[in-house]
């Protein structure tokens, strides 16, 4: 092999090596580029899931609150009816007591 041929072979090898490194750099740049969009996708997806869960939590609480309120109102209506019924049975005695206070008691 002549000296020129040897140099040629080495130059070619250097070129090939440079190409390998250049390709690797391109691949690395591509990997870095993809990560941004991947992170953005992940963010959108995770936050959408969280927001959906959050909305479900609030809605569930609202429904629970409404159910509890309804139940409380029903119980309360019964309690008030009973209270008024008991009070009504004491009306006459109370009126009598008040009249006594006015007509007998001191100012």
């Amino acid at each position, binding site marked *: 092999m002549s000296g020129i041929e040897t140099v040629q072979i080495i130059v070619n090898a250097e070129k090939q090596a440079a190409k390998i490194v250049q390709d690797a750099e391109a691949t690395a740049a591509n990997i870095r580029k993809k990560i941004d969009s991947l992170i953005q996708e*992940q963010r959108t997806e995770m936050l959408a899931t969280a927001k959906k869960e959050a909305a479900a939590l609030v809605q569930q609480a609202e429904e629970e609150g409404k159910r509890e309120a309804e139940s409380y109102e029903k119980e309360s209506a019964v309690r008030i009816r009973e209270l008024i019924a008991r009070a009504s049975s004491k009306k006459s005695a109370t009126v009598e007591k008040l009249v006594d206070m006015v007509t007998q008691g001191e100012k």
Partner: protein
Amino acid sequence: MMSETSKFTEDILKAATEKAGNIIGEAEAETQRASNEAKTSISREAEDIIRSARADAEAVKRRETSEARHKSKLHEQKEKDIVMTEVLDHAKKLALDVTKNESKYSPYLTTLVESAIRQLGDETLLIHLNKADMTRINRANVERDIAKGLQKPIKIEWSKEPIEAAGGVIVSTPDGKTRIVNTLDERFDAMEPKLLIEAGKSLFGQ
């Protein structure tokens, strides 16, 4: 045997391949780190959203039940007020009706006058009655009963001007500067807060 040139070119390519591997490995490690950091940060954001939603949910639930409690309290108060007003109106009517019963009213009127005299502390007094009482009340009897009740002589003058009241008296000093108003209407109005408390206790045990 491998020639020197071949060995040299092989080394060049080997070094390039190694460098390429490092470049790509570094990029992958870097993106992996970025991905992990992003995941942690996004997870925190998502947790914040859920935490905030839990607080909102609690508030929403509390608001619903608290509104129901408030509504119920108002309803209860309204119903109680109806009964109290009814009882108070009825009591007022009956209290004013005492004027229709001569045997009850006359001693009651005497008590009202006595009470006013004690408050005034004077020995000469002017008594004011409404038009109906001016004609039907036996003044001599009232004066006698008052003197008996107070156990001291009192000079009583009777006003010729009728007062506007359902019953009861206004007792004043002769110059009219000091007056004790013991009319039934006034008495009832003055006692209303006490009567309401008593009615509340009696009707609702409060």
